[in-house]
C-alpha cells in the first residue's frame, strides 16, 4: 500500500490549498448569507438626510421643510455655510435648502424668488430633492394664481402631494423562497470543484511525471495494484471532502431541513463530487505544471459556478445562458439542489426530476472519465 500511503503524504503538503478554499467558501457564505439568494419579498423606500435653513422664518419656509420631510429625514442645522459644507462632505446630510428673507412675500406676489441649495456633488439624491421642491413651489404658486391665500394654497398643495407612491412587488411564481441552506449548497458547487481539483489533480500530476512513472513501471509493483492504490487514494480524498461538506451543512442547518431532504442533498453532492473527481483526474493526468492546475481550478470552479447558476439564481438568467448552462454539469447540480431545497413534505418531492438531474451528472462524470482515458492514452503514446 505504499502508493496509497504516499498519496496521503503528498496530500498533507496541500493543507494550505484546502484551507484557502475553505476560507473563500466561508467568506462567500458570509457575504451571500443574508441576501436570501437574491429573492426580495419586501420594498423599503430610501430616505434622504437633508436640512432647510429658513432665513425668512416664514410659514412658506416651514411648509417646504414639512413637505420635504415626508419620506425623508430632516436634520436641524445651524445657518453656517462652512459647517453645512462640512456636513455635506461627511455625508451627514445630502441636501441643503436655503429659503431667503422675503421669500414668502415673493410667493404671495406671484413672483417667487430663487431658492438656493447645496447638495452632494453628482448625487442623484440632490436632484431628486430639487424636483420635489420645484413641484411643491409651483403647485402653491398655481393655487395662489387661482385666487387662494398663501395658507390655503400651502394646505391644498400639501394635501394633494401627500400621496405616497404605492409599490407592488412583481413576483415570479417560478421563484420560490429558498431556505438558508440553499445558498450553502449552490455556492458549495464552486467549493467542491475547487477543493477536489485543487487537492487531487496536483497529486495525480506528481505521480504522472514522466520520470517518476518510468521508474514505477520498472519496479515490481503491478500496474493493477498501482492504479488501484491511486484510485483508492483519489476516491477516499473525494469522499472525505464530500463528507465534510455535508457534515458542515448538518451542523449549520440542523433542524432546518428534513432527513429526506438532507439525504437527497447528500446524494446530489455525491454525484457532483464524482463529476469533480473526473475533472481532477483529467487535469492531473494531462497537465504537468502546478501553476496551470491552479489556473484550471479557478477557471473551472468559478466559470462553471457563474454559468451554472451557483452565484446568480437560474430564474433570473437569460434563456440563452440557460440553454448554454445545460451543457455544464453545475447546472444539473443546481437544478437538483433547487428541487430538493425547501420541500416541506415528502409527497411534494419531484423524485423523477431529481433523478434526472443526478443521472445527467453521472453521465457527465462517465463522459469525462472516458475522455480522460482516451486523451491519456494518446498523450502517452505521443510521449513515448
Amino acid at each position, binding site marked *: 500500500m*505504499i*502508493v496509497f500511503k*504516499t498519496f496521503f*503524504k*503528498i496530500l498533507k*503538503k496541500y493543507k494550505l490549498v484546502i484551507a484557502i478554499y475553505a476560507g473563500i467558501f466561508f467568506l462567500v457564505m458570509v457575504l451571500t448569507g443574508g441576501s436570501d439568494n437574491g429573492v426580495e419579498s419586501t420594498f423599503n423606500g430610501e430616505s434622504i438626510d437633508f436640512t432647510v435653513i429658513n432665513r425668512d422664518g416664514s410659514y412658506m419656509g416651514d411648509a417646504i421643510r414639512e413637505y420635504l420631510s415626508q419620506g425623508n429625514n430632516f436634520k436641524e442645522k445651524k445657518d453656517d455655510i462652512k459647517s453645512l459644507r462640512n456636513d455635506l462632505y461627511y455625508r451627514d446630510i445630502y441636501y441643503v435648502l436655503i429659503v431667503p428673507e422675503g421669500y414668502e412675500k415673493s410667493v404671495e406676489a406671484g413672483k417667487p424668488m430663487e431658492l438656493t441649495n447645496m447638495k452632494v456633488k453628482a448625487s442623484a439624491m440632490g436632484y431628486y430633492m430639487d424636483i420635489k421642491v420645484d413641484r411643491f413651489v409651483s403647485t402653491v404658486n398655481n393655487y395662489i394664481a387661482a385666487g387662494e391665500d398663501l395658507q390655503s394654497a400651502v394646505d391644498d398643495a400639501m394635501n394633494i402631494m401627500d400621496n405616497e407612491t404605492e409599490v407592488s412587488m412583481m413576483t415570479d411564481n417560478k421563484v420560490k423562497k429558498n431556505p438558508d441552506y440553499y445558498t450553502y449548497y449552490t455556492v458549495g458547487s464552486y467549493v467542491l470543484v475547487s477543493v477536489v481539483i485543487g487537492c487531487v489533480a496536483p497529486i495525480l500530476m*506528481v505521480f504522472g*511525471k514522466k*520520470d*517518476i512513472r*518510468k*521508474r*514505477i*513501471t*520498472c*519496479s*515490481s*509493483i*503491478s500496474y493493477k495494484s498501482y492504479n488501484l492504490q491511486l484510485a483508492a487514494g483519489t476516491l477516499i480524498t473525494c469522499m472525505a471532502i464530500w463528507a465534510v461538506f455535508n457534515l458542515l451543512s448538518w451542523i449549520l442547518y440542523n433542524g432546518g431541513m428534513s432527513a429526506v431532504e438532507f439525504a437527497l442533498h447528500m446524494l446530489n453532492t455525491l454525484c457532483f463530487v464524482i463529476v469533480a473527481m473526473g475533472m481532477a483526474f483529467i487535469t492531473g493526468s494531462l497537465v504537468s505544471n502546478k501553476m496551470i492546475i491552479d489556473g484550471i481550478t479557478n477557471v473551472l470552479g468559478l466559470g462553471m459556478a457563474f454559468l451554472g447558476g451557483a452565484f446568480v439564481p437560474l430564474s433570473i438568467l437569460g434563456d440563452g445562458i440557460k440553454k448554454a448552462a445545460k451543457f455544464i454539469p453545475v447546472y444539473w447540480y443546481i437544478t437538483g439542489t433547487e428541487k430538493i431545497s425547501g420541500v416541506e413534505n415528502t409527497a411534494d418531492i419531484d423524485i423523477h426530476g431529481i433523478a434526472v438531474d443526478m443521472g445527467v451528472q453521472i453521465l457527465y462524470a462517465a463522459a469525462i472519465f472516458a475522455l480522460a482515458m482516451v486523451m491519456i492514452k494518446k498523450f502517452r503514446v505521443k510521449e*513515448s
Partner: protein
Amino acid sequence: METVIKVENLLKRYNELIALDNFNLEVKEGEIFGLLGPNGSGKSTTISCILGLLKYDKGNIEVFGKKMSPYEYDIKRQIGVVMQNVAVFDELTVYENIDYFCGLYIKDRSLRKQYVKEAIDFVNLGDFEKFVPQKLSGGLLRRLNIACGIAHKPKLIFMDEPTVAVDPQSRNNILEGIKKLNSDGATIVYTSHYMEEVEKICTRIAIMDKGKNLAIGTKEELKNMINLGENVSIEILDFDEKYIQDIKKLPNVYSVEYVNKNLHVKYTKGQRNLIELLDFLRERNVEFGHVYSELPTLDDVFLEITGKELRDGE
C-alpha cells in the same frame, strides 16, 4: 559465471528509423558492464527494451534466464534502476522518497526500514534525511537518486549516466559506491559519456553506434582491437620542426605534432618505439625535459571504432 542479461537479434524501429539493428548483448553475473555510444546510438533504447519500458519489433531478451516482459514482476523485483534524470518526489523528504521507491519492491515494513537506513548510509545522506529535494545540491540529489534505485538491494542495477552534472568529489563517492555495490554481489550495467569513469570501474565494455554493437570486451581487449600503440609526449623547449618529417620515417610512427613546446608522437603497435625516438633526439643534440608515455585510452579506441568523439556527440 551465469548470464544475467541476454539480448539476441533485437530490432527496434521508430517508424522508419531503426534504433536497434539486430543488436546482441550478454552480461555476466558480477560484471560492471559499460555501455558506450554517442547520442542516438541506441543505449537508452536498449535499456528501455530490457526493462520492459519499450516494445520491440523482433528479437529476444532474457533476464536471469527468463524471457523479459513488462509483467515479469519477479524479475523486476531483482532489478534496480538509476535513471539519468533525477526521478524523485519534490513533496517528500529524502527518507520518504527512498522509503517509497524501496516500498515498491519490499512490503515488509521493518525490513524496508532497515534497507532505507542502509541506503541512506550508503550514499552518505544521513544528515539530510528530513530535507526535501529542493534543498539538496546537485551532487546530493544524484546520491538520493541512486539511493532510491538501489535501496531494495537488487541483483541487477541499471545506471544511466548517474554522474551527470556532479562535482568531482561526489562523482568519486558515487563511483566508489558502485564498486562497493558490485563487490557486494550486484551486476551493474553502466552508461556514461565520461570515458575515464567507464575505464575506471567497468569490467567489460560494449561500444554502440547506430543501433549496433561495434565492439565488446574488456578495456584491454578493446585497446588490442585497434591498431594503436603508445602515445609519447616529450617536453622540448627549442625544437626545429624540420625534424618532424624525419621522425615520421621512424618505425611504427602513426602521427607527429609539435604543440606548446611539446612533441607528441603516436605509434601503431610495435616495440622499442620510445627508445628509438630518444636516440633520434640525442643524436641531433636536441635537449628535452619530461617524457611521458601512455597506452591508448578508451577515447582513442572509441574514436578509432566509431570515427566520433564521444563527448562531442553527447
